[in-house]
């Protein structure tokens, strides 16, 4: 059995939830940890550079991260990721509404106790 303190690698979805919103050719994606203890770990791992690379296939431009320690939560704003926006894009999800779940699939390393389903650990 996995010790609760052992560090495991899991999709962000095990540790946080979030939602996409769109405006023009950019989206924002909120990332809200289920447990406050995860907050500093996510701050260290979810850098704008890493998020930009994660959305490279979508042609992501500038990525800005806004931190809200009060909630706690962070808010990513990703430019140029809609490939023309809801009106010009040829893809199925012109609003980018699904993209929060793309970000929630990025791997993060956390103590097993912070993952909702530690058995979903990935190699």
């Amino acid at each position, binding site marked *: 059995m996995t010790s609760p303190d052992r560090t495991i690698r899991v999709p962000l*979805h095990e540790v946080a*939830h*979030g*939602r996409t*919103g*769109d*405006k*023009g*050719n*950019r989206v*924002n994606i*909120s990332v*809200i940890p289920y447990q406050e203890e995860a907050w500093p770990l996510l701050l260290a791992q979810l850098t704008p550079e890493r998020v930009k690379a994660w959305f*490279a*296939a*979508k*042609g992501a431009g500038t990525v*800005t991260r*806004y931190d*809200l320690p*009060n*909630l706690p*939560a962070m*808010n990513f*704003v990703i*430019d*140029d990721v809609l*490939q*023309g*926006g*809801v*009106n*010009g894009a*040829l*893809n*199925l*999800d012109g609003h980018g509404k*699904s*993209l929060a779940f*793309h970000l929630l699939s990025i791997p993060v390393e956390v103590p097993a106790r912070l993952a*909702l*389903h530690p058995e979903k650990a990935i190699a």
Partner: protein
Amino acid sequence: MTARTVHIGCGAGFAGDRWDAAIPVVATLARRSGPRYLMYETLAERTLALAQQAKIENPAAGFSPYLERILRPVLKTAKAAGIRVISNFGAANPLGGARKILEMAREEGVAGLKVAVVDGDDLTAVMTEADIRGHATVEGIGMPEGKLVAANVYLGARPIADALALGADIVVVGRCADPALALGPLLHEFGWSLDDLDRVAAGTMAGHLLECGAQVTGGYFADPGYKEVPDFGHVGFPIAEIDADGTVVIGKADDTGGLVSHRTVKEQLLYEMHDPSAYLTPDVTLDVTGVRVEEIGRDRVRLTGARGKPKPPTLKATVSFEGGWLGEGEITYAGPNARRRAELAIEVLRTRVRDLGTNWPLRFDMIGTVATFDGDGGELRASRPWPDDGEYRVRMATQGGDRRMAQWIADEVLSLYCSGPAGGAGVRHRTAPLITTASILVDRDRVRAGARLLEE
């Protein structure tokens, strides 16, 4: 005497929302006392352009096509209980929408209904197309080509408050900032000045939380095994209670499913927000970085600490243009070797479209892999292997100026039935007119918003 608490429910978060959502909201509000309001948000960026096109074909149309279906079930109860209604369902024709409401009131036997119209959002009434095109765009999309369809500025809360001061039971607006649908009643009831930045910010935050309907009560939130939502099929729509000091409590309609928790509220608080210290609206720049979110009871969450900064110097407007035609088609391959048959279908479609002699952009998806997250080039799908056996749906999409070519390209998907790989099934193909939109910033002194009461 000014009110201490104002109750504002929401009956729709977008044009296609649940037709019956407002019924339990109004029933709940009817059991409460004090000033009570129902708002409907029904106007996405492109919705107004579609309404404008409808109005060109029929001058009596152009208001929300859903207006009757969402308002009629609550019209009588709301009027009897003194619940006032505010909505942007006027779309491109608030006056036409108001007339429709008065017609419904007569049919339903609702006497003495006062309906107000807010106008001034239509920029084409005060600016030439060249003038509109001369504005720089914001939010990353340049000024589109094509024929101008609509240009509407986001109005603030003041004209809505003015309409209420005229005694309106129902206020019909075209384009306005979504949070203004809630801020308008608060300005009216509390007598807040727009210079009272922190209170205006709190009212704007309340409106922002309400404007997407169930998105704050468990809708667009449910994720089985992670975020459970009870009786989700009957998700209840929100009711906010706002105090004169700017304290906001989010709750929901009685006897409904869904939930209000700190998590549902936080997700909606940050929805469509970019810099959380500077959420721009016509009335105030909202800063939510100091907001405290507390669960104070079952399905009750209190928010305090919204801060206001001065409003931006300009108003945002959405400009819409005819954008040519979309052509798309889909076909499914299932069972043994489905992936390779689907890939062959894509190869055949590429060949066939090339033979049409067009250079229109093409996008191919294999639904069942990573189509939703992938770019137009399919890089994500190409980055890893997919099982040969299974179920894959091929999708091709294109766009350009000529409807006939859009149809011809889409028709190539249909012809895969007899001439494509084995077992192709379930073709759907279509063409659709496109509207392209962009955002511009407009000087405030170019815009004259006003409210007037419609006499029966």
